[in-house]
């Protein structure tokens, strides 16, 4: 298969810059998810790789081959559209056979290949039907079969699961990953659903406003978001994010809402001493905190009043109000404080994230870049 590389790629539509000087490598045989809110430019990147859009600046490579000026039909890619784009006037068999027919493949070969891919995707019994007679999940498989039948070097998937219902989505998601690994094809998967991206991808690329926010394996994206956007976009419910002032009298300490103070851990202390920001942006994940009755053991603690409790069965989401800031905490089902009750929110040690208030970048990453730089 092949590695896909974007070098300084920019795409403008009139005055709007949809993709802004992106450098990106999609590893050979890797499953990469492009994750971002709608309008972030993630689909544009996919269509740039497909050749449906031409970059305003920059080059695109498949391995050593510069494909920037090649038409989509010269790139050997498979593309699955969000709406599947099945030809409504052709049967499932003809839909799948179509790319091979366009390549003037001999009919016997077409037959064998279509039957093979149909078997592989469990749609052999649907071959005589028309797309309109299929369910959403079946249409999705046919679209995938049509993309795979020509044995593409790169498989591009544009939100392929978003038109399916939630249950089916989870089922197909694991299957898709299995197929990709089995074929070893380089896959690029566009989605706005973070759980899909985290569950399936080898690497997740988070994009916002045409700029790459972070490019990392799923657990890094989750545990060490590079900036405020990634922290607030990933997670359900998303991270609690709020500003706080700093105090440097003895060591760098944060004045948390509700009047408590927390002096930072080793990994943040160095960078804070050097930058000495008067304010930081603080973040933590709802699942990394708990409601306690007594503040103990040096964990960061925020004092507040219970605002609402949403029991979800497996867990509760408790919203705590502290100085105009609403914090969400996931608690075990038995922890069910009353609204109005005064509580302490304790954050797990080492799970507090600090961001530079100007650039909104995680101070941990700034520290790392410094230590790497010298």
């Amino acid at each position: 298969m092949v590695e896909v590389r974007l070098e300084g790629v920019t795409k403008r539509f009139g005055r709007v810059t949809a993709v802004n000087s992106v450098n990106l490598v999609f590893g050979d045989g890797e499953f990469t998810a492009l994750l971002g809110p709608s309008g972030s430019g993630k689909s544009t990147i996919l269509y740039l790789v497909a050749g449906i859009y031409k970059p305003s600046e920059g080059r695109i490579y498949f391995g050593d081959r510069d494909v920037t000026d090649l038409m989509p039909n010269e790139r050997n890619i498979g593309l699955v559209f969000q709406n599947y784009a099945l030809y409504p006037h052709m049967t499932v068999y003809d839909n799948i056979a179509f790319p091979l027919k366009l390549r003037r493949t001999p009919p016997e070969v077409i037959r064998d290949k279509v039957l093979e891919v149909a078997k592989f995707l469990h749609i052999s019994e649907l071959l005589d039907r028309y797309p309109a007679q299929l369910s959403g999940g079946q249409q999705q498989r046919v679209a995938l079969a049509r993309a795979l039948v020509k044995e593409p070097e790169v498989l591009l998937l544009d939100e392929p699961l978003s038109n399916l219902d939630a249950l089916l989505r989870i089922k197909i998601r694991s299957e898709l990953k299995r197929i990709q690994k089995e074929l070893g094809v380089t896959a690029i998967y566009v989605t706005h659903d973070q759980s899909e991206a985290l569950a399936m991808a080898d690497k997740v690329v988070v994009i916002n406003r045409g700029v790459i926010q972070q490019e990392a394996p799923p657990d890094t994206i989750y545990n060490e978001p590079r900036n405020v956007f990634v922290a607030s976009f990933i997670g359900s419910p998303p991270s609690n994010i709020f500003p706080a002032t700093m105090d440097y009298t003895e060591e760098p300490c944060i004045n948390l809402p509700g009047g408590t103070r927390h002096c930072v851990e080793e990994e943040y202390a160095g960078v804070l001493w050097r930058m000495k920001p008067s304010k930081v942006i603080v973040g933590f994940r709802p699942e990394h905190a708990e409601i306690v009755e007594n503040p103990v053991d040096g964990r960061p603690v925020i004092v507040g009043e219970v605002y609402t409790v949403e029991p979800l069965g497996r867990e509760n989401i408790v919203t705590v109000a502290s100085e105009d800031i609403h914090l969400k905490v996931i608690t075990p089902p038995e922890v069910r404080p009353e609204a109005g009750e005064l509580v302490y929110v304790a954050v797990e040690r080492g799970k507090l994230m600090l961001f530079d208030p100007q650039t909104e970048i995680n101070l941990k990453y700034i520290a790392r870049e410094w230590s790497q730089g010298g």
Partner: protein
Amino acid sequence: MGEGIGEGGPLVRGTMGIVIILALLLASLPIIMTYSTLVMTSFANTIVSSPWVKFRFTLENWRLFLEGKLAPTAGIVYTPEDILRFILNTGIVAGGVTLVVLAASVTSAYAFSRMNFFMRSGMMKLLILLHAFPGVALIVGVYAIYVFLNNYIPRDYSIYYSFIFVIIARASLEIPMAIWILKGFFDRVPWELEWATIVDGGSRLTALRTAVLPLVKPGIAAVAIFAFLAGWEDLIYVLVFLPPQEKTLATYIESQLGSGSLETTYLPVVAAAGTLYLIPTIIFFVVTQRLLLETMSGGLKG
């Protein structure tokens, strides 16, 4: 009765609804009456102009008409005319107009819907303007071209020239609207289908042929029907461009009622001609009613 307004059905019901339906019927009376006069007269020995006219049912008009005994010149002496030729001529013009309109509008409409080119929007505006253009100003210039070119046509081919010219000239009048209608149909085909074809290895032309055209068949049908009816119904261009002996149904009827021919005209026979002439229109009308209504309003969404 038990059905609420939210469940579909008419917005006005009961007495008010019946009043409206009757009011519409009253307003429609002239239309209903005139058309039934035409059809009834073609089967009668006199003009069946009102419900109390006494008439005798007869197929005589149709027989005379189809035998070409159209106008008794003195008493009952007929000079038979080749009526099949008239019908054929009408069909040739209508079919020719359809072909020319389709040939010139399908690819253009696709380009206007799907491609970016110099002056795209300007050209589309021009087409809309042309559609509304004073046809009478055009026909003077078009006839000047016709006369001018006719000097270079050998006399033997003159008749072919006339037919081809009238067909192309008449088709041109329909092209702006045809492109506009078809563009609307192309606009509704998802881009992804076309992209899928190109990603799968096809060219733009392949995509048009295999993925897009099958989906705009209703649009092509609508445009073809409009073009056919335009050619079928045309009177002015045929009258101006075709030599007097090459009549269509329109110019035949015209010649029967036009100035100076009235003394010899037997109106019930003309009614048979008119009824026959109306049949294709009615057939298309009934078969494609919804498509027709939608297409006519489709040029304007806003």
